């Protein structure tokens, strides 16, 4: 069960619309390292996870990623307010506009729509947690790249918050990997998968 809370995790208040920035930042909505993929990754992986502490982390981080999906949506909405034809065509936003107008649609900046093929739920404790650690770093790099391309301080403020969260999640998942390994055979982490081979030692 989930309950919606009618507020952003961190405020987004952008004074100056800029469709070019929207076209870049949309990647964190539906791109290969975007927030909806992050949320689905953790909320699917948690079900097969045998360790309660790690189920808690995947639940809580997966839920937070939905709040990030909402923040990116707010950034895109505010960056595409009151656009004129010239701005749409000159900025290159026209290729998104023709398909979605100014509606919010999860797609990579390069144009590929969101696909679940961009993440894994492997049903294996070590494989899933290592994917999670890598995912947080890849998302952090995407935010670094956005900060390399965007100058508006209103936009950068929210992007910096999201970037910092990737680093915190990485640290928490490092705890998760340690907890998993403490529960496994330290002489052979790869001897069996505790998410499936439950009867075996």
């Amino acid at each position, binding site marked *: 069960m989930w*309950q919606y809370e*009618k*507020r952003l995790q961190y405020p987004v208040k952008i004074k100056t619309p800029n469709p070019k920035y929207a076209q870049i930042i949309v990647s964190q909505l539906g791109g290969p390292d975007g927030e909806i993929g992050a949320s689905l990754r953790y909320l699917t992986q948690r079900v097969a996870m045998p360790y309660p*502490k790690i189920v808690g*982390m995947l639940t809580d981080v997966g839920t937070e990623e939905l709040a990030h999906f909402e923040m990116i949506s707010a950034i895109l*909405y505010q960056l595409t307010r009151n656009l004129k034809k010239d701005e749409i065509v000159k900025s290159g936003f026209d290729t998104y506009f023709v398909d979605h107008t100014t509606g919010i649609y999860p797609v990579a900046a390069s144009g590929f729509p969101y696909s679940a093929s961009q993440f894994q739920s492997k049903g294996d404790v070590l494989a899933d947690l290592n994917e999670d650690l890598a995912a947080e770093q890849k998302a952090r790099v995407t935010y670094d790249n956005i900060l390399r391309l965007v100058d508006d301080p209103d936009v950068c403020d929210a992007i910096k918050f999201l970037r910092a969260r990737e680093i*915190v999640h990485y640290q928490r998942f490092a705890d998760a990997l340690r907890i998993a390994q403490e529960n496994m055979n330290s002489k052979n982490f790869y001897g069996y998968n505790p998410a499936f081979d439950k009867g075996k030692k």
Partner: protein
Amino acid sequence: MISHNRGTTRERLLKELSTYAFSAYEALLYLDAYPNSREALNFYNKYRRLEAKARAEYESKYGPLTMPYDSTEWNWTKGPWPWQLEEEVGS
């Protein structure tokens, strides 16, 4: 991090609430891995209490943030949605 001199009163109260909620949430994530940390638990409880107080103040002035209890009038769809700027709110 909290800027008290920018934005409307509503935005200021919402930011205060969000700051407390964020602090509590950050401790919650930590407690998932370190449930025996008394320090983290005290931190969590402190900010969760501050959040509840700020939430009550905000909701009394600007309407519910989650599914309301015992409403005398229906305010859920009133006021700006989180992505909207205050000046664009319709009815």
